[in-house]
């Protein structure tokens, strides 16, 4: 990857202030004094957080983009119950090889909800039987009533430790855990090899740095920042890279919003995303685990394939109309489009912050009589917190559907769309058939926009309700 494909500058794009510099980061490095003190050394070469983590995991002095490495991980690897028993995992028992370390594998049964099919029930039992056969301890099995979407469930327990490689069995949105300062990625079809040998191969990605300045205007959140960035960089703009989100806006984000921001990286063509850990990250991790860890942060003179600087001061709510995930528009171009379904959920938008955003708009109101709005909390902890804060009362009073934690309407697991239905969703993606019928249409937007649109039965700018 030394022969960089993206050596030519991208056209400058504008919001209120946007600047792109090539190769060398001359903008805010994202480092702060408090964090420098926890790094073990500043390399003379100037390395990104991604390169530092991968070098350590590979047992090398340093690594550069394009290097092939072999890594293991000391973090637990969650496996969902759905489709987990493929990708070589099914042979652990048949070949009598078991798994490299049963304590490091966890079954998180949260991808499918309580309302899913008989097929889901079979899948569930298959995962349980497999876990028993390879010796996974009972406490590593998180059944439906104490789980959630595996990406979020693991993030809220800080299974991905700052400075470590974190590997999930399946689910490309594992990049969310990059917000913990870990190199978070998914083994996907390679999971069998990792489960059996404890090792997997990687190619060190180039890093793309995004420095975000300004302050979010009302009606916008991290989701709009991501979608706006995607609209500018395009679906291949970050091909194979690690996105490194930095700057005052990222610093000010809550952890849930940071997870959300990182979780969507694949739609820019990137492999994963990461945020340099700060005191907020370290406090979050320390409150959730007793494991020791050694955070890493990017050097001030680290080399980036690209550096983007943008200001969110004039950001508007963004909407992604069907069917192309990367064709993003400001809400004013789509306002008034009739909708009859809504969804707030998935690893992109079912943190407590997102439920609060929706509740603020729905409080004391009822959704449009022709609309079904599904609001699915991501994990049981989030459901519990939403109950404590009275958010679930607001949703039920507003006549929303509130299932127990799972992926919700994502890939049509629950309350799927039928032909001719039009949904506005804060889920992950919108290709035809993603939430049921190929004839249905999916518009993507932030949770405030979804809530406001469901009140009116048409795409509605949430700012009028704030």
């Amino acid at each position, binding site marked *: 990857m030394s*022969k960089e*494909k993206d050596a030519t500058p991208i056209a400058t794009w504008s919001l209120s202030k946007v600047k792109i510099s090539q190769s060398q980061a001359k903008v805010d490095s994202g480092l702060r004094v408090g964090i420098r003190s926890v790094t073990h050394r500043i390399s003379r070469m100037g390395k990104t957080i991604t390169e530092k983590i991968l070098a350590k995991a590979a047992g090398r002095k340093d690594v550069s983009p394009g290097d*092939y490495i072999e890594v293991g991980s000391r973090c637990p690897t969650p496996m969902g119950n759905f489709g987990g028993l493929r*990708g*070589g995992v099914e*042979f*652990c*028992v048949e*070949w*009598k*090889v*078991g*798994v490299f370390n049963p304590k490091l594998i966890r079954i998180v049964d949260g991808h499918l909800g309580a309302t899913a099919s008989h*097929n889901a029930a079979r899948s569930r039992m298959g995962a349980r039987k497999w876990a028993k*056969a*390879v*010796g996974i301890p009972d406490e590593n099995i998180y059944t439906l009533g104490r789980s959630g979407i595996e990406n979020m469930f693991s993030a809220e327990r800080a299974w991905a430790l700052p400075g470590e490689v974190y590997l999930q069995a*399946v*689910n*490309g949105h594992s990049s969310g855990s990059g917000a913990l300062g870990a190199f978070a990625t*998914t083994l*996907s*079809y*390679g999971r*069998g*090899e990792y489960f*059996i*040998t404890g090792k997997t*191969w990687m190619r060190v*990605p180039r890093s793309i740095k995004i420095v975000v300045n300004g302050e979010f205007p009302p009606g916008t959140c991290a989701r709009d920042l991501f979608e706006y960035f995607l609209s500018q960089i395009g*679906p*291949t703009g970050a*091909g*194979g890279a690690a996105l490194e989100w930095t700057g005052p806006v990222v610093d000010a984000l809550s952890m849930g919003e940071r997870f959300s921001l990182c979780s969507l990286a*694949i*739609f820019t*063509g*990137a*492999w994963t995303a990461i945020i340099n850990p700060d005191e907020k990250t370290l406090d979050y991790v320390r409150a959730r685990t007793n494991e020791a860890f050694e955070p890493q942060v990017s050097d001030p003179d680290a080399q980036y394939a690209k550096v983007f600087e943008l200001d969110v001061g004039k950001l508007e709510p963004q909407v992604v109309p069907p*069917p*192309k*995930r*990367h064709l993003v528009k400001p809400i004013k171009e789509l306002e008034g489009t009739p909708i009859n379904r809504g969804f707030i959920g998935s690893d992109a938008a079912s943190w407590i912050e997102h439920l609060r955003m929706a509740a603020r708009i729905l409080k004391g109101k009822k959704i449009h009589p022709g609309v079904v709005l599904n609001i699915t909390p991501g994990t049981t902890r989030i459901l519990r917190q939403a109950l404590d804060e009275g958010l679930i009362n607001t949703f039920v009073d507003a006549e929303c559907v509130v299932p127990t934690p799972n992926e919700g309407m994502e*890939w*049509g697991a629950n309350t799927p769309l039928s032909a001719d239905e039009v949904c506005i969703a804060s889920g992950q*993606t919108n*290709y*035809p*058939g*993603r939430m049921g019928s*190929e004839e249905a249409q999916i518009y993507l937007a932030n949770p405030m926009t979804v809530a406001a649109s469901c009140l009116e039965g048409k795409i509605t700018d949430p700012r009028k309700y704030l």
Partner: protein
Amino acid sequence: MKPMRGRAWVFRGVLDVDWEICVFDISHELQAKGMYTPEEIGKYCMTKVDPDFPKKVRKGDFIVGEFMGFGHDHDHACLSILGAGVAAVICDTSAPYFLRNSIERGLPVVEYSGILDAVKQGDELEVDLEKGRLTNFSSGVELQFEPMPAFIIRKLEAGGMVPLLKMEVDAGRIPKRLT
């Protein structure tokens, strides 16, 4: 690994694993029916772009794409391409999960920036992964790309991760931890 020879099937634009390459739901339906095989899912390869592609493509042909494998880390797309008989994917850009999953499945993916300027629909190609050489017999153009490392060649020659692991198990190089 011997050089591969076949015809080019050109696909432009962003090709999502879950839609253009192979509808995700097909993989669920086939699993529920116990029919999730390369041959069965191969019948749905690229059909949203070219409904007759699985019938027209010959074993050993190449997919030459623009942005291959956009979206999720779902490996059914790789299986579908293999099942259709495609020998390798050559593309301008590959999504990282698509590239990794393809290799684990035993399907080579070569990234070459500007490939669509060098290859037209139906061109006769030869691809040598070890030497990093693509020869277009139809145009006479020869391109150099980064050769694949030995460990990936070994995996591809074995037919992917699972057959390679099986070889290692049979050779006694992986401990049998279960009784």
